[in-house]
């Protein structure tokens, strides 16, 4: 029995080209236009456990970053200063 197969007998438990695969998965996650991206993603997620876990973890982190790190409110005095200084240049 191949040690590289999980108990379910279908997913690889090791990814031979982890760095390359993970970068490709991240590119797909980032919405980059990868030829056959959907097909590659489906296949990787179905057949490779490390790829599956990496993709879902990255997706969760990306979502967390987007929802928790984007809410700086620009100080009003900065807005006022920019308007004032631009008027001066004009």
């Amino acid at each position, binding site marked *: 029995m191949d040690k590289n197969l999980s108990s379910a007998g279908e997913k690889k438990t090791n990814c031979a080209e982890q760095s390359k695969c993970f970068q490709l998965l991240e590119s797909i996650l980032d919405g980059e236009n990868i030829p056959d991206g959907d097909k590659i993603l489906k296949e990787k997620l179905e057949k490779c456990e490390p790829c599956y876990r990496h993709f879902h973890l990255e997706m969760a982190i990306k979502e967390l970053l987007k929802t928790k790190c984007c809410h700086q409110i620009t*100080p009003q005095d*900065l807005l006022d200063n920019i308007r004032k200084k631009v008027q001066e240049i004009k």
Partner: protein
Amino acid sequence: MPIGLIAEICDFQFKVQNKVKALTFFKKISDKLTHSLLLILMSEVQRKKYSDKEKNHIFDREFMPHIDSMYNFAYRLTFDEDDAKDLVQDTYLKAYRFINSFEQGTNAKAWLFRILKNSFINDYRKKSKQPAKVDYQEVETYYNSDDVDYSSTTDLRVDAVKDMLGDEISNALNSLAVDFRTVIILCDLEGFTYEEMAKILDIPIGTVRSRLHRARNLLKDKLRSYAQTMGYDTDEEE
């Protein structure tokens, strides 16, 4: 060899050398002339590109709507409210001064981010209250090897990440060296494409991809240690 012949050869060599010198001189002059002509032509084109009304329209409709993103970026680069304000203000004033170099219909947000990033490198990085702790080249060389230990990062669980509070993810992001922090901000917070990031950062797309990948591995390392201190099970999934 007769003396007359030697003299002739010397004379010939002298003429050849002078010709080469003269040619080099002319080439230099013509290059400079072409360059200055180009600059004059460019500024001529720039001067006449937009009317004042158009400038104001572009500034208000295309530049100002990105101010929250710009301030967030500046704050995460400088970690200081006053520095962030100065950086954003400088960026917007530069954007107005050089508005004629902006092509309407192109990506204003990417254009502004590029100015801000350049201003940060040129003006703020040196005097920043929290300078980059690690020299970028050093970091890139270190992490450019392919033997990154993934086993230490893959056991962070999705559940643990989903339960994290804003502070943890924000602190983890802020703890990264500035070049790694930057690619995550541009990609995950601001949604720039790799091509846009390459232009903003003046690096090839391949470098964007690998830098982002390495930045994410570093971020996961941080999150993993937070998850452990929070008491989350970071072992293998059940």
